[in-house]
């Protein structure tokens, strides 16, 4: 007959214990350190991104300086506005690293609003300018000579703007827009060169304005993209930092064996999370990335938050696992105490299966008459938080079935009296001699046992 009895721990008791464990394993956030770290790590990225932006804007500036006197002032003004905004954005990004992720969207919204205001202002300027020109044009229509010269001037300025736009990543933000304008410009130029009149000053002015609009739009979006990418990088760096901060659990007091390793207790979940964060960061940082401003915003706003939530879960699971493991030893201790006090076993030897603290805990008691009893506390349930206590008795002598049953029942009752809420003692398979030798238990592979 089997001496193996399975004793389940009451579910309500476990729910309570799980709550305790959750409170013990809060996610660790060393925010000042995290900010420093993120600032450090994102500075180079920001330098590079905004440096590129600056260079492009400088190139535009140069091109703009080649414009006719008439247009240069407006274009320079626009460029200055865009550059001011970019600088403002960077400063804000750098200053607001304090605000890690939650206000990124707000930040970007402010920046967009500023850009929109700038561009709107520019447009109004241009419209006033064009209205002034229109009076001139009416006068100039009568002066063919002057009109032709003015048309040529607009077309030349359009050409300068074309060159400036070409230096910008216009294909990313306004695909094919420049090509179309270029074709119209070439047509106008060739017509003018061939002496064909009629394209006219008005058309040249319009073409120029279209080039100007494109330039502003590309500049605007370029700044927007750069800022969004910076925010995404920064958010992912922050997640990376949090992951690093939570590689081990900070417990008070610190356990004698050191702080528990979250990756170990989460059975690799932390490593997997870290890998995903790194991969995404790589994609964001890749210069040739196809990611859009929206993509970056999504990363900064949503994906990073999801990563953080996952991190929290992983850490809590690890904490609960630690707690559950500890409880398994505690339960074994309670059972051992009951066995010693009421049943005269001396319980000395103990081990985790395969010396892995995440696995079942075994303790063995020996009786004066040579009988031995093994306490097995095995994690159960989908998250391994619950446990089943089994008491495996290896009786020496010749106790009758009735006596053996009485002993097991008395152990069950004394456990209950000692605070372990236990259910009914059921037959649980055959008694495995391998469980009696704790050296074997110490050496064996739990996974292989489970597989068998």
């Amino acid at each position, binding site marked *: 007959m089997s001496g193996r009895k399975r004793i389940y721990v009451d579910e309500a*008791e476990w729910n*309570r*214990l799980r709550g*305790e464990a959750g409170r013990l394993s809060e996610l660790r956030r060393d925010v000042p350190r995290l900010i420093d770290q993120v600032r450090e790590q994102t500075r180079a990225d920001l330098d590079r991104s905004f440096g590129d932006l600056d260079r492009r804007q400088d190139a535009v500036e140069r091109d703009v300086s080649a414009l006719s006197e008439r247009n240069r002032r407006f274009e320079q003004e626009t460029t200055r506005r865009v550059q001011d905004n970019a600088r403002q954005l960077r400063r804000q990004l750098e200053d607001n690293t304090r605000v890690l992720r939650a206000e990124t969207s707000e930040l970007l919204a402010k920046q967009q609003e500023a850009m929109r205001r700038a561009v709107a202002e520019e447009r109004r300027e241009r419209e006033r300018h064009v209205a002034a020109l229109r009076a001139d044009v009416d006068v100039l229509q009568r002066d063919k000579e002057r009109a032709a010269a003015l048309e040529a001037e607009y077309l030349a300025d359009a050409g300068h703007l074309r060159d400036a736009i070409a230096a910008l990543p216009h294909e990313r933000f306004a695909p094919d827009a420049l090509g179309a304008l270029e074709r119209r410009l070439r047509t106008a130029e060739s017509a003018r060169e061939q002496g064909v009149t009629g394209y006219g000053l008005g058309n040249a002015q319009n073409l120029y304005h279209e080039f100007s609009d494109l330039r502003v739009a590309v500049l605007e979006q370029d700044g927007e993209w750069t800022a969004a990418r910076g925010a995404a990088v920064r958010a992912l760096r922050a997640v990376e930092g949090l992951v690093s901060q939570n590689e081990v659990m900070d*417990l008070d007091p610190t*356990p*004698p*064996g050191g702080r*528990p390793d979250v990756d170990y*207790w989460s059975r690799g979940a932390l490593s997997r999370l870290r890998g995903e964060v790194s991969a995404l960061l790589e994609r964001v940082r890749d210069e040739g990335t196809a990611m859009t401003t929206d993509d970056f915003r999504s990363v900064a706003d949503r994906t990073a938050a999801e990563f953080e939530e996952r991190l929290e879960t992983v850490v809590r699971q690890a904490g609960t696992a*630690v*707690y559950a*493991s*500890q*409880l*398994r*030893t*505690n*339960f*074994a*201790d*309670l059972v*051992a*105490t*009951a066995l*010693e*006090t*009421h*049943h*005269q076993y*001396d*319980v*000395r030897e*103990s081990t985790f299966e395969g010396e892995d*603290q995440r696995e079942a*805990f075994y*303790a063995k008691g*020996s*009786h*004066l*008459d*040579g*009988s031995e009893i093994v306490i097995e506390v095995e994690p159960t349930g989908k998250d391994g938080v619950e446990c089943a206590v089994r008491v495996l008795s290896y009786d020496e*002598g010749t*106790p009758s079935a*009735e*006596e053996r049953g*009485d*002993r097991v029942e*008395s*152990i069950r*009752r*004394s456990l209950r*009296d*000692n*605070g*372990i809420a236990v259910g009914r003692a059921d037959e649980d398979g055959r008694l495995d001699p391998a469980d009696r030798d704790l050296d074997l238990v110490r050496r064996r592979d739990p996974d292989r046992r489970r597989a068998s």
Partner: protein
Amino acid sequence: MALVLPPAVPERLAGLAGLGSGEPVWVLHGPGAHDEFVGRDHVVRPFEQVLIEFLRANGYERVAFSSPVTPVYFHDTASHRLARPGAPTAPAPAAGGRTSRFAGPLGNRFVGSERMARQAAGGGGHAGGHDTGPDPARPVEGISDPSRVQVLDALMRQPRPRTAVVLVDVETLLQHLTARRAFAGRVARWTAGQAHRNTCLLLFTRPRLDEVVELIDELRYAPQLVSYLRERPGRRSCAVPLPEVAEVGRLVQVSRLRDGLEVTPWTRLPAVVRAMAARVLSARDWLGELGDLARRSTPLREAGLLSGGAVDDRSAWERLEAMTGLAPVKEHLRTRAASLAADAEVRSRGLGSDEDAVSPHLVFTGNPGTGKTTVAGLVGEVYREMGLLSRGHVVAPAADELIGQYVGQTAALTRARVAEALDGVLLIDEAYRLSEQPGGFGQEAIDTLLSEIELHRDRLVVIVAGYTGPMSRFLAANVGLRSRFPERNVVEFPDFEPDDLHEIVLRRLREHHGLECAPDLVTALRQVVTGLHRTRDEHFGNARAMRELAVEVKDRWAVRTRPAPGAPLAPATAADVPEGYRTHLDRGEVRLEDVLAELDGLTGLEPVKRSVRELVDTLALHRRRRAGDPPVPPHMVFQGSPGTGKTTVARLVGEVLRSMGLLARGHVVETQRADLVAGYVGQTAEKTRAKVREALDGVLFVDEAYSLSTGGPQDFGREAVTELVAQMENLRGRLVVVVAGYPGAMRAFLAANDGLRSRFTKHVDFPDYTVPELRLILVDLAGRRGFTFAEGTLARAVRWLEARRAEEGPAFGNARAVRTLLGDMEARLARRLRDVLDTADDATLSRFTPPDVPPVPS
């Protein structure tokens, strides 16, 4: 194998040496199993510690205990180590709450709930229960009984180290054990030789082994243990009694040193300790009482610790000698004591045989109040001083207390009282009652008593006591009794003499009640006790009767004098002699001539007067003829109608006989059927005897005696007659019985009782009064009350009496009818004078007139 008794083991545990027999299972039983002990080293130890000292001194390396509450525990570290080699001997310090012995990821922290930790902490010391004794706070539950049996068996069956397993409070344990079959099986294995040289000690608080065995037997699950214990009881058990003299002496010393108990004077200490040891008290209780004394700074000398009142430092012999009277008792006891002492000496030299051993058991015969209980106490002390008893206390149940209501109860009751009396004296008063009910439980009590005497030969002295006659019948009825209580061990306690009684009653009044006795009371009491002594029977209470008399005198004195607070107390006088005792007072010298003159003065009754004179003459002749041997006055039959003077004449006859010296008191006790007959079988004889005792040395006057035999054959009147006849025979010369009634009825009564007829040799006929005699009686009665008769009144009264006699025939009341008439006339006179009560003169108020005579019945 001889065992060592280390200094921790006091005298009362000498029986432990029996463990040398090597029996695997031993029973220790007795009230001491819960007690503390003071060994020869003067250290106070609980029983379990004493056992450890003893067992370890005798080669037991490991001593384990098991109580109903704690399945297994150890008192010494060595035993604990030998039983639980892996267990640490001291609990780990648990700073900041409970810790777990097993390290997990959080080290040894205990992360369970508060409730869990608390309950776990309450579940026994976590380091394996080092030296943990029984914890009374934990409930008795059999939850770990299977394991208890498992570990006890392991301890008993290991060849090494040599082990003793001590089961404490086995009464409770056996009754609540859940693993019964397993336990019984293991014990059977041990007794069958599987215990190597290990020993299991079972501790019971029941005083006797057979009670222990009975208990186990009743539980019905360990029959092997029952037969094992029954097989060789002497070799498998020993008693654990209460402390004896030597240990009580050490208890006093311990309390002196520990609590500062004062002992003054030292010279009296041995006597005090001897007296203390006679009390049935545990060492623990003694320590408590002595400690209380010390706290109250009361010296032991003055302590009310001793059941026998003040400590008397005289030896028991000296006190016996000092007792009033009892000369034959003293002499007898001296002889018995010398014989016992000599016998003990002879036997100590290996000479003599048990069969001829002098029995220490005694029979005290005599009436109540003759000092039997007091002397029994002294016998206990004498035996203690002689070394025959270790305690010498007296347990004195009445015989009835030994008899139960159902089968088996009697033996249990008897054994219980014997157990109380062990090492002392069991005094059974009125022991003859045990054999009074044939087929009753009394015989069972006797049989039990005899087997107990045999069982506890050296620890029990039995004294049976009672009236002389019944006791000799009691002893004669049972051979076993006679052999234990031989004739030479019968001590007769004589009744106290009148002088002793007089001294006793005066001492009680003066010393116990604080009364001053006036000389006339002293004289009167002498008359009373002399009378009581003279009329005493076997129920006479002797000293006890004197105590009752003193109480009654005091009550009467209190009612008479009504002492005011602070006022001087009046002495008690002869007036305080209670009514019931006054018949014993001298009524002064009575001269025959005076009595006869009074007889002659009676109206009518001439045949009666002649008859009495004849009797006087006859008795006088007899007295003259047989010098020194006074004649016996005859019992008499007075035949006559009601109211013919029979009672009056009976009283005069009593006076006549007293004046002639033929009756000591000559008083008359008037009785009727109702005074003699009771409602239940057996009660009538006693009721009759009581009246006879009352009339002793006087006249018992039974009016309308024929009514005793007018009932059917089942009527208890016959029982009264039978008893009366018996008493007349027994008390010949000390009692005159006069039966009286209508002539015809009395003739029938005597005819129906042969025994009666032959004993009533004097017949006196009382004729009805003639009308002139009735008239004289009326005049005489009225004259004594100061009434006169107006003319015509007497004639009218006579007509009324004649008419009444004619109407009533033999039932006519004679003189009684005259008294009735006089009463009626008085009432009518009063009615007539109601309106002139204030104005009428004395002559008018006391003169009957014809209308005062009731109308003549038609």
